[in-house]
């Protein structure tokens, strides 16, 4: 498969207005950097980021990474959604996941594959070379980050387990364990969390099974020990703490679509033209920011890598 360079934001494309809108962000970011570390450059600070968790060894860089500066580790790990720990974005998931143990952990591969299996998480990862993928991450709530994920291309996993010709979709499931996920006692969502991809989407070179961020293992609140990353889709497609990958013939259900079918679809491709019923998707906040500082890009800026998969589809209907 042809691997194309990602189309990063070209500075020539940024309109004068958005530059104007970003002025506070620049001032804040530089002020924060000065205060936090006493004069090192933002880039140097970003490169040295982490949370003191175990370092992942032998991580290969990827040409699929964006050259944009990664967001602050502190922000990526303290502002996100993970309903199994707390409802809503904010520091709830971080605070409520302090005692979460991502071991022991099993991953089941089943359904329409020639080589189904139950793996211990470490055995599951072992055959593959870890890659760092710096991706834009766009939440359906109209905020975004740049996250240096570490993981394995999902296509590599799929080739190894040999899906049968009837397999057309992949369904992924989060662990169901009330002891480890306190919110699973409530009926806020239907548990366990389910997500799915078409097989060609799962095979796309961008699709990653992430086991780390910023060179370290994933913190609990970001989906330890293994989660899906599909950077051209809204964040809720990125099912966390996966225990099952099932190959199926018909389109699987996904949790948010079950919750509110008029607001969340199966595809959930980032699309500035198709609004969420309760807010516009035309712009976004690249956090930290008080106000929208970017225009949302079609497929979150990954058009070259993914648009061909949706040729001829009405993306208004298949939101």
């Amino acid at each position, binding site marked *: 498969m042809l691997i194309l360079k990602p189309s990063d934001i070209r500075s020539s494309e940024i309109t004068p207005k958005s530059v104007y*809108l970003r002025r506070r962000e620049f001032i804040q970011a530089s002020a*924060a950097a000065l*205060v936090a570390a006493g004069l090192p450059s933002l880039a140097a600070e970003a490169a040295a980021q982490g949370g003191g968790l175990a370092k992942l060894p032998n991580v290969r860089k990827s040409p699929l990474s964006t050259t944009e500066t990664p*967001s*602050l580790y502190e*922000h990526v790990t*303290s*502002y996100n959604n993970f*309903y199994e720990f707390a*409802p*809503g*974005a*904010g*520091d709830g998931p971080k605070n409520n996941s302090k005692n979460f143990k991502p071991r022991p952990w099993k991953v089941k591969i089943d359904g329409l594959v020639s080589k189904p299996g139950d793996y211990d998480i470490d055995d599951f990862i072992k055959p593959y070379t870890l890659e760092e993928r710096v991706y834009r991450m766009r939440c359906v*709530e109209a*905020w975004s980050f740049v996250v240096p994920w570490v993981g394995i291309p999902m296509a590599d996993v799929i080739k190894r387990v040999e899906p049968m010709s009837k397999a057309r979709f992949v369904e992924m499931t989060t662990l169901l364990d009330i002891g480890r996920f306190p919110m699973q006692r*409530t009926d*806020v*969502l239907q548990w366990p969390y389910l997500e799915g991809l078409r097989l060609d989407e799962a095979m796309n070179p961008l699709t990653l099974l992430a086991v780390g961020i910023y060179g370290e293992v994933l913190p609990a609140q970001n989906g330890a020990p293994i989660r899906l990353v599909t950077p051209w889709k809204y964040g809720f497609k990125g099912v966390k703490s996966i225990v099952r990958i099932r190959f199926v013939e018909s389109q699987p259900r996904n949790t948010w679509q079950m*919750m*509110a079918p008029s607001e969340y679809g199966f595809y959930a491709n980032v699309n500035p033209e198709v609004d969420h*019923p*309760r*807010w*516009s998707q035309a712009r976004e*906040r690249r*956090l*930290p*920011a*008080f*106000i*929208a500082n970017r225009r949302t890009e079609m497929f979150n800026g990954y058009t070259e890598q993914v648009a061909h998969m949706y040729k001829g589809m009405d993306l208004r209907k298949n939101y």
Partner: protein
Amino acid sequence: MTPITLVRILCFAAALVPAAALVYGFFTNDLTANPGDYITDQTGTWTLAFIAISLTVTPLRRLTGWNQVIKLRRMLGLFAFFYGTLHMLTWVVFAHFFEVSFMVEDVVKRPFITVGMATFLILFALALTSNRLAIRRLGRRWQTLHRLVYVAAVSGVIHFWWLVKADITVPRRWAVAIGVLLAFRVWWTYRSRLSSRS
């Protein structure tokens, strides 16, 4: 200083604490990575809180016989307007950065915004007519107008209920609280009708 004056001063200071906490959080960089949304949530919550607190004044007075407490009511209502104004301004600035066309679209297309704006307009009208001159000029109509606070309480809860993604726990709590406070009024009205009939 009379006791109620002291209570008023303490209430005034306490009512400013949530706003002060936001200002403090701004300068200590402690409003999450998405401070616009955080401030919007906080000011919205405190608007609803002050509507509810101002609605407890009359039940408190009738249940305890502490008549002086009525002297807190206008101030508490004005704090609901104060936080409601901040909340509305977060939408103007953080959500839309003064772009009128986006705001109009929001109000027209999105029911939770429509209801939120209606709630704000009620609070605005009540704040405008909260001074002595307006009370005197409006006469009996003043009380009728200010019963709109019941509508604002209900529409405030609806606004909250419609904007959450999945977890209705918190708006449901507010619905119960406002429901109890309004039930007092319904009950008293019902009883006074009964007694006036007999």
